């Protein structure tokens, strides 16, 4: 055994190196996660915690029981859908930082439909979904049109639209005079009325607090729809081409400004769907402390999957699992939940600076043209 402790490289079969050279770049995201967990363990150890107990708690909290698993799935659903929104924009050469605001816009539109209409579920649920998509799309379209018409950078405008969406939601909910979207029965005036039963997504109950709703099915379907749309349709081709090389797209007769608006609209509608899904499946209302941060974490989810829709299914699940498992980790090892945030940040850093991971695991360097397209530079 001690012999095997030496560097294993010379003992490897000759074919392994060739295999590693060829396929290892695909493992970069996985290795980034592993590396981040190792660094996280070191941080826990240095602060005097028991890293093994922490990680066992993390695992069991996320996957240890059917209920834990259901909680992970519920938590992951908005990350997956919102991750798709960010990825679709990335593929179109746009950096949509505004998923957060678009998610709020979608959620609010769903609430309006859910509180004002009375319909049988077979109509009410689709209407809620459509309302969410339309709300998100409209919010994102503002940034898209500004970019297409005036060249204003989408990063700045989507950030600003986030602020507007968040503050607007807050005001719509809290305002009593006039009463806008707040619930008159809620004394703390911190949420909207609950949506009608007929617009709530069907679910399976596991225990008192866990209701696994149908949103995950929507997320899985969307993963495949987005993958198909980007790679197998002419519109997807236009989006990708404008995103990769706007000059060549122009020469090929593609209207780049139109494509920019379309990409933002589609991206925003996905983010809006994520918001509607949370309203219809989990909360049944929008409160002032809604699911803040999902739109930002979605950027990380998309990056981790390198904007590959199928990959987002897994990176979204990972994100949900880390957050779900954190609570049991805290109980078992007495470690602050913030450690999970540190690990998430480390994962993103190892993805962004993937040269570190490549160097650590002897993965060949990127060839020209293989760079992960994140977005065009400022003003680009």
């Amino acid at each position, binding site marked *: 055994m001690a012999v095997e402790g030496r560097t294993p490289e010379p003992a490897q079969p000759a074919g392994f190196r060739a295999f590693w050279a060829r396929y290892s770049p695909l493992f970069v995201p996985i290795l980034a996660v592993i590396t981040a967990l190792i660094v996280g363990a070191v941080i826990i150890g240095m602060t005097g915690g028991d890293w093994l107990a922490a990680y066992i708690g993390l695992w069991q909290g996320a996957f240890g029981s059917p209920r834990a698993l259901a909680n992970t799935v519920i938590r992951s659903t908005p990350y997956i859908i919102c991750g798709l929104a960010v990825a679709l924009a990335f593929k179109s050469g746009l950096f949509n930082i505004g998923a957060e605001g678009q998610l709020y816009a979608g959620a609010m539109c769903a609430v309006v439909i859910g509180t004002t209409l009375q319909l049988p579920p077979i109509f009410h649920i689709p209407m809620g979904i459509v309302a969410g998509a339309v709300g998100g799309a409209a919010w994102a379209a503002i940034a898209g049109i500004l970019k297409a018409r005036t060249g204003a950078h989408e990063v700045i405008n989507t950030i600003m639209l986030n602020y507007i969406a968040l503050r607007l939601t807050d005001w719509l909910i809290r305002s009593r005079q006039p009463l806008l979207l707040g619930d008159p029965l809620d004394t703390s005036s911190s949420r909207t009325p609950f949506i009608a039963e007929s617009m709530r997504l069907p679910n399976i109950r596991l225990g008192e607090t866990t209701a696994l709703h149908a949103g995950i099915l929507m997320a899985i379907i969307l993963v495949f729809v987005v993958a198909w749309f980007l790679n197998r*349709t*002419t519109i997807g081709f236009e989006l990708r081409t404008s995103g990769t*090389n706007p000059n*060549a797209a*122009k*020469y090929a007769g593609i209207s780049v400004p139109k494509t920019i608006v379309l990409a933002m609209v589609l991206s925003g509608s996905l983010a809006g769907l994520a918001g509607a899904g949370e309203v219809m499946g989990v909360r049944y209302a929008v409160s002032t402390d809604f699911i803040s941060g999902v739109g930002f974490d979605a950027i990380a989810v998309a990056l981790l999957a390198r904007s590959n829709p199928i990959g987002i299914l897994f990176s979204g699940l990972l994100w949900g699992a880390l957050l779900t498992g954190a609570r049991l980790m805290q109980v078992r090892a007495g470690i602050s939940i913030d450690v999970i945030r540190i690990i998430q940040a480390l994962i993103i850093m190892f993805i962004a600076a993937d040269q570190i991971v490549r160097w650590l695991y002897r993965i060949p360097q990127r060839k020209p*043209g293989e760079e992960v397209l994140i977005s065009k530079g400022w003003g680009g």
Partner: protein
Amino acid sequence: MTQNGQDRPVVLEARGITKRFPGVVANDNVSLKLLHGEVLALLGENGAGKSTLMNILYGLYSQDEGEIFVNGAPLRVNSPHESIERGIGMVHQHFQLVPVMTVTENVILGNEVMRRGLLDRRQAGQRIREISQQYGLPVEPEALIADLDVGAQQRVEIIKALYRNADILILDEPTAVLTPQEADDLVRVMRTLTAQGKSLIFITHKLREVLEVADRIMVLRGGRVVGETTPAEATEASLASLMVGRTVLLRVDKEAARPGAPVLEVRNLQVRDDRQLMAVNDVSFEVHAGEILGIAGVQGNGQTELVQAVNGLRSAVAGSIRIAGQDVTLASSRTVSELGVAHIPEDRQRDGIIASYPLTDNGVLEYYYREPFARGIVRNEQEVTKHAQDLVTRFDVRTPGVHVSASSLSGGNQQKFIVAREFSHPLKLLIAAQPTRGIDVGSIEFIHNQIVHKRDEGVAVLVVSAELDEILALSDRIAVMYHGRVVAIVNNGDLSREQLGLLMAGVSLTEAMVLQQ
């Protein structure tokens, strides 16, 4: 190296240089001797290993095998710093100058003369004037680089090397950006330099210049030295076949044009460039079916904007454009393309191809939305793949397959693929901008023949090229552009190469006629 080499000392010698890159041997046991006061021309196609060899000599790369000697002493550590110290200077094809700085500042950059902690501009300027006079390189030390024309910028680059006391100068494709007259000036400068004891390595793929200026010629192909000769023993044809490895037709074989009805009619066109300056000013011409109109001119005289306007990529300020009788002055690029207009863009990496896309997607870049490549919005991958395979076979594009990314192809093969794509649809008008820039002789020959073939099928062809030789080889009629205007339209053969060169430099037609007499 026989008759020249008797009495001159060897200033630079490379022995058995081998350089491998993953998957390629860029230099395979290459040896080279540069004698004092001579011009050694290094000839080869793109990818033959010229640049690799020069980058090794200049210290930018280190060789895997082999040795380099400067004046008999080995050059050990490979870094540009040491090469410069040992008297090797390089003039890159793309100038390494800072446009907002003066000539003096650019020349002393990295080699500043200080006096009491301050830059001594006056002393530096004085030395630049001396160098400029000694070698016949007229340049004003106080001028801003941005205000200088390309020829003057190149002189600054040469002065920069001489200022660092270079005795060996490597000139990388120095004539690519020059007008014919500027190129003649450069040849004169090269003669002055060698007469005063400098030794030059001259990299090029233009055969005419090699024969004119070189003392010895070395030909590289596939990383190996395939021949050494002198201008006395060589002809353009013999050099071309050495470069390509087979006999090459240098003249395009074509019959007289049989022009038909006008296909492209441009009337009093005015187009502004990105800085809102008038780039195309009152331009009128026609291209008929079955003829090739060549637009000659030094780059940046409005050709780019003219082509963009015709293609619907840039809107005209005034005037009109008609294609096949239809007014397309304000039409979108897709409308123009659907009229049967194909366009080979001048910058293929930027506009013609998407480097990260596979050939399959690149093959349908303009027609991806049409039957049979798509039905509704759903792509038909089988048809797309079949189309790419078809293009590759018909135009003999060298590629391991159609699913590899376009970036893995050589420049010549990328261009062949673009030409194949543009030719794969029914055409009325073909616009070819710099159709053979930066590609090898073999591919140039092939693409030229294909363009002539299209003409013979009755397509109207507009060729824009900065290479006068290409214009002369292809065109039936020639229009010369200077400062946004068409200064002359003549039949090919009416004017000499020199007269066209004068027109390109801004001399008026009547003056050009007189000057040549």
